[in-house]
């Protein structure tokens, strides 16, 4: 999917949610999504409560509803998939406006839509209230392997640089009268992609050189570390704990 990752979700601001340490937020969002996914799909009211919980968090983070809803659009391909479900799933059927729909398929569509949307909304709130850098520090604090965090951090640092190079190459192509039309233009585009790879790789080597020149010997010095107080953990835990309560009710009712 996804031509169009260019827009970053982060919204600058000062709110109780913005100020929570990143690893607390990451853990809270992850646990929240786990709880949502583990909720039985028949407990429809539970999903409504989850949505209310997220709306409360979004409110505390001062994220406008319109912004949040617009970001949910990333889900569209799966909406399409979900819409198909009532038509292709066999089994007991109901008739809505004369259309035969599968009961199981309807449940399935509801399940995917509800859980998927809540998952995306939670991720969007996380990404809108946490800076890139802080997210990386949070991942590091959550004991992701340091090498993986470093790779991610280089990717974030150079993502824009490489995308810019790609854009410049595209402008250069168009300036010389090239217009990408149909399969016949693939050769030219692929040559650009190849050139982009070579540039990226060579830049990687130069970056390594610059690192070595400043004393790099295989491990990154830890310059920043994030810490969280018990109070901050408690505040971050509010979301998943509330969700867990809803989930348990959903299982027992």
């Amino acid at each position: 999917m996804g031509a169009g990752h260019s827009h970053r979700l982060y919204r600058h601001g000062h709110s109780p949610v913005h100020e929570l340490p990143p690893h607390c937020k990451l853990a809270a969002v992850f646990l929240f999504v786990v709880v949502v996914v583990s909720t039985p799909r028949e407990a429809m009211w539970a999903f409504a409560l989850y949505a209310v919980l997220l709306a409360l968090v979004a409110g505390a983070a001062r994220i406008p509803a319109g912004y949040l809803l617009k970001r949910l659009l990333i889900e569209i391909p799966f909406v399409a998939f979900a819409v198909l479900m009532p038509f292709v799933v066999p089994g007991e059927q109901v008739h809505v406006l004369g259309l035969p729909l599968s009961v199981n398929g309807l449940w399935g569509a509801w399940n995917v839509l509800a859980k998927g949307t809540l998952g995306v909304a939670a991720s969007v709130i996380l990404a809108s209230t946490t800076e890139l850098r802080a997210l990386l520090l949070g991942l590091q604090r959550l004991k992701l392997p340091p090498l993986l965090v470093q790779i991610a951090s280089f990717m974030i640092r150079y993502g824009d640089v490489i995308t810019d190079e790609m854009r410049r190459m595209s402008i250069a192509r168009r300036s010389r009268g090239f217009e990408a039309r149909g399969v016949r233009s693939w050769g030219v585009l692929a040559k650009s992609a190849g050139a982009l790879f070579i540039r990226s790789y060579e830049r990687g080597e130069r970056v390594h050189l610059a690192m070595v020149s400043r004393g790099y010997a295989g491990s990154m010095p830890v310059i920043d570390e994030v810490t969280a107080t018990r109070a901050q953990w408690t505040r971050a835990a509010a979301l998943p704990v509330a969700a867990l309560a809803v989930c348990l009710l959903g299982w027992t009712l």
Partner: protein
Amino acid sequence: MHVPDGFINAPVSAVTGVVAAGAIAVSLRGARRELDEKTAPLAGLVAAFIFAVQMLNFPVAAGTSGHLLGGALAAILVGPYTGVLCVSVVLLMQGILFADGGLTALGVNITDMAITTTVVAYVLFRALVKVLPRTRRSVTAASFVAALVSVPAAALVFTAIYALGGTTDVPIGKVLTAMVGVHILIGIGEAAITALTVGAVIAVRPDLVHGARGLTAPLKLRVGGELVDAPAAAPAAARAGSTRKVWGFGIVTALLLAGFVSFYASASPDGLEKVAHDKGIDTKTTQHASSDSPLADYSVKDVGDARLAGGLAGVIGVGATVAVGSGVFWAVRRRRTNSAPERTPETV
């Protein structure tokens, strides 16, 4: 296709999470062995490249366009380990930064799009390069086939995951036909673009194409007027490298099998699952047994006990993932700190 939350049930998501964690751990070691201290900057830049190239649109016809997924390309250009790392990091960042792909589905997405594509493409590519004559054209052809197969292979793995843990029982036959059918089409595009891109790189910097290493003609010695092959350097080291690689893939396969087989075992309709239902929720076996067969979750009529058991199993499964995952990473990190940097020539 980034799978969102709620598409695959919790236990299967957890198992794929373990598989992904294991494969990433193996790849971290492998990449470090190949690139040494250059791993972080080089893999980071290649990840940025994959990220960027996914935005490059290739027009197909009538206003439609496709774009590269990049797994096969990464595998051929930088090798399977670095390739897995790069694509995984791209997926991780897309999940966290752009909410593209669910957080709980990260294991599914990585297993599917990072591991399957890279490993399938690389194994196939190396096999073809071995068989075909040593020319650049063969490399391009091998890239084409490798990329072509890698995309439906990912669709196949996705279907398998869906069969085990899909939250709706769309008939698997239909899913398979649709997924594989569509992805063969996508695969053709992916194959053409990958082959053309590899061809473009190999024309300028053949030394950068990881998968084409060893394609340069072997050094010759002039002995009594005859040209003979120079003895290959350090065959012993090469052997050590490949054993470790076999070991690495072994672990991944074992994990895959362990996950899949256990779920198939619990899938038989009148097996463990029925027992679980009969016995209620107060035994441990129950929690495991009904942990979610492809059938159990969809039978809407018997909610109650079996459902609760399934949910508990889900939670336990996720807990286990976290435990096993961090265990693996901890072990890897410990090993890495006391293993001296070593370089082994690439042989597979």
